[in-house]
């Protein structure tokens, strides 16, 4: 079997994920909705249980043993995340609720302090609503202007087009490293350089990148990176904002409260150092710890092999779709320019109907606008169906996807014109 050629041993890996042995409507679960959220291995579930069973206490300012242990566990998780993205310092890793909150943090704590009505924020047309709406709110409040890099026909972002859109007024260029709607990968380093050449900061939405590709914020020379734990085997409720230390230092705090202060008087306060300045209140301790376990799991994988694995699944999926006919595919033709995401429509069948048939076959795909309504308008569709892969998916599952696809066409009597 061709699977043997892969260094990612999905069959062994699958044993770590109890949910993958579930059946759905009488059929084995084929989970292809990893761009929305991934499943969690026993190691992550076990770390949650162990944390609550043995260590649970509030962090900081505790002298008792449990508090000290909990504090150390959060610190250790922060160190793991920092290493995973090659952050120069652990203090530049800030825990948030999710990637969305990380981006909102920048809009709030950086944008409200530094943006003026003369300034512009540059985005792209492919952005997830989480990297669009916070900037709309900020721009409205500040009277600043939003500009958008037009998307290429294949859903990708090009440096040349971005170069024509950026202006000397651009104060921040916020863009996705990998599109959740089409899988298109962005030329991250080139876009960061372009931002810097124009005196702007660069914020990278890494929600679809960090789980799948080696990430090095220093090699990117980025200023901000946002991503979520739950898309990389970790629990929901934890996200990360990484920021360049000098930029984080000059920003306002985010939320006010405990932990983010140094000294408090009735009328004023001084703020804590990084990262605590941005982490008010009791954090989501248990999930941070479990996120650390997810990072451990991922760190044991060879990411070059993970990429090869996902590319193989993507290649076969696209082949099946092409052979089937009556399919519209979105995203770059060149597989090297896309991640493990395949977005498509079947003839004139609504994506929700497609998704329903897939579900009856036990195959979980996402359908709809993928939180990218402007991009869907550009493609002139209400939505698409989307399969997205991760480390535990197999070529057999892609074949199950193919059977479900055939069923969609039979069920809705789609005629082949080929």
């Amino acid at each position, binding site marked *: 079997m061709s699977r043997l050629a892969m260094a990612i041993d999905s069959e062994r890996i699958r044993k770590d994920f109890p949910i993958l042995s579930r059946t*759905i*409507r*009488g*059929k084995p679960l084929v989970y292809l909705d990893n761009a929305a959220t991934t499943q969690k291995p026993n190691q992550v579930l076990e770390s949650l249980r162990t944390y609550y069973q043995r260590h649970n206490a509030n962090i900081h300012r505790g002298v008792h043993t449990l508090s000290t242990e909990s504090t150390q566990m959060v610190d250790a998780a922060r160190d793991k995340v920092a290493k995973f993205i090659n952050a120069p310092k652990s203090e530049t890793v800030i825990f948030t609720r999710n990637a969305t909150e990380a981006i909102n943090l920048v809009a709030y704590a950086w944008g409200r302090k530094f943006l003026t009505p003369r300034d512009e924020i540059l985005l792209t047309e492919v952005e997830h609503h989480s990297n669009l709406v916070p900037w709309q709110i900020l721009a409205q409040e500040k009277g600043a202007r939003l500009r958008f890099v037009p998307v290429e026909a294949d859903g990708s972002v090009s440096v040349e087009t971005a170069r024509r859109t950026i202006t000397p007024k651009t104060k921040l260029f916020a863009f996705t490293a990998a599109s959740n709607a089409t899988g298109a990968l962005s030329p991250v380093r080139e876009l960061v350089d372009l931002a810097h050449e124009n005196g702007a900061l660069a914020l990278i939405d890494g929600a679809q990148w960090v789980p799948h590709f080696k990430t090095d914020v220093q090699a990117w020379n980025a200023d901000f990176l946002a991503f979520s734990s739950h898309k990389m085997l970790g629990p929901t409720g934890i996200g990360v904002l990484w920021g360049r230390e000098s930029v984080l230092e000059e920003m306002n705090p985010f939320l006010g409260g405990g932990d983010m202060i140094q000294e408090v008087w009735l009328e004023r306060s001084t703020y804590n150092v990084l990262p605590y300045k941005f982490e008010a209140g009791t954090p989501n301790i248990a999930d941070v710890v479990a996120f650390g376990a997810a990072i451990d799991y991922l760190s044991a994988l060879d990411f070059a092999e993970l990429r090869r694995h996902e590319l193989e699944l993507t290649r076969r999926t696209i082949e099946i779709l092409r052979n089937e006919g009556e399919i519209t595919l979105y995203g770059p033709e060149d597989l090297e320019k896309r991640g493990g995401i395949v977005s498509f429509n079947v003839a004139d*069948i*609504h994506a*929700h*109907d497609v998704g*329903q*048939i897939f*579900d*009856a*076959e*036990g195959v979980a795909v996402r*359908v*709809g*606008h993928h939180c990218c*309504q402007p991009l*869907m308008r550009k493609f002139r569709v*209400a*939505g698409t169906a989307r399969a997205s892969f991760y480390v535990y998916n197999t070529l057999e599952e892609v074949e199950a996807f193919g059977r479900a696809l055939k069923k969609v066409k039979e*069920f*809705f*009597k789609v005629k082949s014109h080929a």
Partner: protein
Amino acid sequence: MPEGDAELADLYRDVLIDYYRSPSHKGKLETPDFHSHGVNPLCGDEVELTMTKDGEKIGQVRYAGHGCVISQASTVMMAEALEGAEFGRAKVLIENFRDMLLRNAPISGLPEELEEAKALEGVRKFPVRIKCALLAWNTMKLGLDQGPRKAETAEYKESER
């Protein structure tokens, strides 16, 4: 038949797919007495209803927009059920249909005008799809409640939950 296939066949009865592909009632009336527009932001489905008044009765009903099999078939079934109905009766039929989907009302109790629409009962087993089936009916209800006013379009929006 495997469990999933049986439920699926119950959801997408053949008659629904026929209705989905049928051109019946498609379009937009030039001079409608009632005009309402509904969207389901969750899935982007959209329906625009135009309708004429024939004395105390509903005259013609036309729909434009786009949506899934469930929403499109339900829209055509609604148009068929309501054309020619007295306004008071139309409101009762809309409530009967809503009761079937939202309150699990037994289909044996549904009036004969909703005979075809009974084919949508399978939607009850798929709670996330109930909104698809209700979009046109809720949009129609809003249009009727607003009354005949040519200048304004009644705007209906499904909530996210």
